[in-house]
């Protein structure tokens, strides 16, 4: 699913931190221009100028900038400045050749979809002046695909049989089978490593190599080079003098680390940083009232869900059967939860309800394909009765002598989920279902409950990636511990559709298949789909862009959309 973007949108489970906001009348669709550069000082502000420093805030330090081991958003954000992608993306997330892509022309698909030919630009260079060739690209892909490396990206390369350099500017990727997400995962998602520096490092030792942690030993294929890392404090990037593409305007980028979101917001307000993406909703009023800050407040790639477990052994007190087994019971739960009200009360409106795992901001979304469950407690009660639940004397429903009762888990410290779980508890009580709430430390939760497929119900989120494939979440081929189908959901028809979806390369056909999945999955409800969250970015008005280069939130890294073209006013 999701996260296909080797750039780790991986925090996935960790939707923890990112909250969001609402946006305007945004229903769907890609890039939205936010505010244009103000015309207060027409000269410097409308015409790009070279030079200057752009400082942005992050709430975590990087782990490594070695492309083979990047698995967290902070590291990916930093690596973004020093890596050129094979293919760039347009504002809908589709692959394109651009002035910044390593590829010189669109890829060719051969052998019915199992071979991809990529033609590179002829003048590519690493920041040490060495040429970047098809050899680097093929070598990187083969190394990451090597199981002995232990790369977290290995699943993206799972279907890659081998990559070879046909000549210095031509790479051939041979796949094991037709696999459409390969384009988003590898051609758009993966970054290249310098073969000439690393080919003699044994694969098992690559994770311990200073490539990626020592700026002096880490090369750049992108517009900036990494010049400095003061751990836990900041990183610095400067224009890459050996860059093969157009020189960016901004001379220096500072990645500044703050202890938490609130500290970062204060720094944005004060003007210590020029940008912070991930402003918490409660801080929004203070940011809005600051005249120096432009907000980019739009739906991002993350969404929340209420996961239901179908494995009987997780419900010993219910006769080792899942109370969620009946489809009408699941639909009743969907009707009993007032998503609009929760969005209004808890998320202050900064989210949109969703009915399937296909976000309105993704190309695979088809309006009206999925079933919508509007708040209707009476309907919920009726469906529960139809499914055989009988009201007991204590005000809760019973079936076969067992009370309808389950435990809902979320991660400690996530205020949004804490509040949402309390409301769900109350709303389900109103229709006769008893919900017990359990908050768990994130690592413990993932390790002891999520990975092994234990627990009864969860409040969690995913980051949706570029490709709409979600097979690993919903297919019975991916039960724990081998995949992320945490709830042991099984539907052979849906299994087959996912497979069909990712083995079709034609995008129109794929879109049709995903519309079918949306219809089926929203009827069957392995999850109760909740909402797509807004992400709120704040940009100081000294940062400028042309309308077509305006940052947005729906795609990975789009908060740095075309940053190569941005420019900054001199520091006041």
């Amino acid at each position, binding site marked *: 699913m999701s996260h296909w973007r080797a750039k780790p949108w991986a925090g996935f489970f960790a939707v923890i931190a990112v909250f969001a906001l609402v946006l305007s009348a945004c229903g769907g669709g890609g890039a939205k221009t936010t505010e244009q550069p103000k015309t207060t000082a027409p000269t410097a502000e409308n015409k790009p100028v070279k030079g200057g420093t752009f400082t942005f805030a992050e709430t975590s330090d990087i*782990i490594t900038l070695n492309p083979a081991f990047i698995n967290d958003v902070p590291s990916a954000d930093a690596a973004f400045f020093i890596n050129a992608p094979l293919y760039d993306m347009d504002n809908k997330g589709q692959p394109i050749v651009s002035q910044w892509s390593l590829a010189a022309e669109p890829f060719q698909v051969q052998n019915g979809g199992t071979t991809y030919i990529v033609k590179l630009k002829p003048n590519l260079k690493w920041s040490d002046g060495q040429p970047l060739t098809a050899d680097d690209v093929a070598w990187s892909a083969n190394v990451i695909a090597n199981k002995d*490396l232990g*790369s977290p990206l290995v*699943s993206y390369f799972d279907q890659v049989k081998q990559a070879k350099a046909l000549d210095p500017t031509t790479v051939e990727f041979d796949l094991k089978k037709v696999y459409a997400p390969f384009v988003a995962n590898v051609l758009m998602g993966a970054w290249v490593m310098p073969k000439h520096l690393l080919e003699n490092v044994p694969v098992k030792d690559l*994770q311990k190599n200073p490539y990626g942690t020592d700026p002096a030993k880490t090369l750049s294929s992108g517009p900036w080079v990494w010049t400095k890392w003061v751990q836990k404090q900041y990183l610095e990037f400067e224009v890459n003098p050996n860059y093969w593409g157009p020189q960016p305007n901004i001379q220096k980028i*500072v990645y500044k680390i703050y202890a938490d979101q609130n*500290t970062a917001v204060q720094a944005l307000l004060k003007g210590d940083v020029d940008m912070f993406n991930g402003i918490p909703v409660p801080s929004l009023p203070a940011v809005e009232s600051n005249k120096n800050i432009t907000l980019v407040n739009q739906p991002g790639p993350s969404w929340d869900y209420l996961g239901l477990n179908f494995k009987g052994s997780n419900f010993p007190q219910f006769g080792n059967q899942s109370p969620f087994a009946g489809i009408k019971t699941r639909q009743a739960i969907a009707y009993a939860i007032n998503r609009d009200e929760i969005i209004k009360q808890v998320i202050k409106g900064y989210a949109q309800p969703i009915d399937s795992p296909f976000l309105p901001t993704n190309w695979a979304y088809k309006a009206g394909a999925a079933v919508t469950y509007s708040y209707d407690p009476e309907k919920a009660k009726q469906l529960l009765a139809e499914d055989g639940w009988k009201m007991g004397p204590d005000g809760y429903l019973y079936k076969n002598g067992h009370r309808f009762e389950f435990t809902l888990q979320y991660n400690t410290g996530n205020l949004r989920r804490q509040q949402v779980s309390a409301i769900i508890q109350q709303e389900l009580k109103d229709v006769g279902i008893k919900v017990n709430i359990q908050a768990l*430390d994130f*690592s413990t939760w*993932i390790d002891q409950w999520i990975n092994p497929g234990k627990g009864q119900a969860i409040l969690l989120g995913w980051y949706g990636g570029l490709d709409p494939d979600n097979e690993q979440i919903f297919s019975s081929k991916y039960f724990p511990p081998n995949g992320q189908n945490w709830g042991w959901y099984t539907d052979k028809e849906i299994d087959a559709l996912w497979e069909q979806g990712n083995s079709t390369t034609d995008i129109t056909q794929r879109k049709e298949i995903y519309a079918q999945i949306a219809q089926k999955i929203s009827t069957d409800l392995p999850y109760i789909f909740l909402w797509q969250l807004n992400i709120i970015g704040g940009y100081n008005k000294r940062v400028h862009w042309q309308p077509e280069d305006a940052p947005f939130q729906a795609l990975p890294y789009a908060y740095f959309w075309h940053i190569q073209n941005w420019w900054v006013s001199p520091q006041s």
Partner: protein
Amino acid sequence: MGEYLVRRILQSLLVLFLVSVVSFALIHAAPGGPTAIFLRPGVSPEVQRIQAHNLGLDRPVPIQYLNWLGLMLRGNFGYTFKNHLPVAQIVWPTLGNTLILMTTSWVLALLIAIPWGIYSSTRQYGLADNAGSVVGYIGFSMPAFWFGILLQMFFALKLGWFPLSDMHSMGRSDLGDLVWHMVLPVTVLVLINLAGYLKYSRASMLEVLNQDYVRTARAKGVPERRVVFRHALRNALIPVVTVLGLDLPIVVAGAALTEAVFNWPGMGQLFVQMAFAREYSVLMAITMIIAAMVVLGNLLADILYAIIDPRVQLGAGGAEAR
């Protein structure tokens, strides 16, 4: 004294060894691990297993402990798991940053609290004493992070007199810049520490001033100033010194919340981050530094007793301090 010191140091080493065994076991027993965080959709446990193997995390915990101990005895804290950075390179700078912040606030708090406590005790329920009570209540009850945010709002955002956060301005490392950045966090920490020390020194002085020998001194006509500073103060300081010894580890461990509010790159914050990341070797290094400070703090307190109170003799022949 020499023999006493040797005995205490040997005891301390034993304590540190036991602390290391227990902490190592506990830290490794926590669910999850450095590689678990890598998991995401499509990443099978196989990847986690390969990484654990490449990083040596799949070996039995006792073996891992012995490896760690071996490195430690050679003065090496080991390496982080996820990115193989030397732990010393991460821990020592943050410890330094914490010490700068904490010792400054600690010393300032003492310089204010002890004279204030003495003065209050000699004029019980006077203006200074009542003011001290108010400061004490505020210091005890006000959350440090909240006070920190208030100071930031007013002095950094509104008035712009002081920097909002961080230890240095970008690109500067001079003392003036550092001091300027320290003003707000030090103010917070002084207020928090002040409350305790003020109460201790005042209570301790009051107790001593009511002792018979003080009354005797006054009765035989010793001037009040001499009574307070000569007769009472030395005895009154003993409990204060005990508290100081116990607080030494706090000076090192840092104040995670205050550090977070002011984005001070200290060890308190580091420990919290590394606990979430399950970076075992960093956690062990910090745990051992704090344990060493606990041991050292106690030792220093005992030695200070001997200096303040000649009745206390350290060593084989003498009575041990309390």
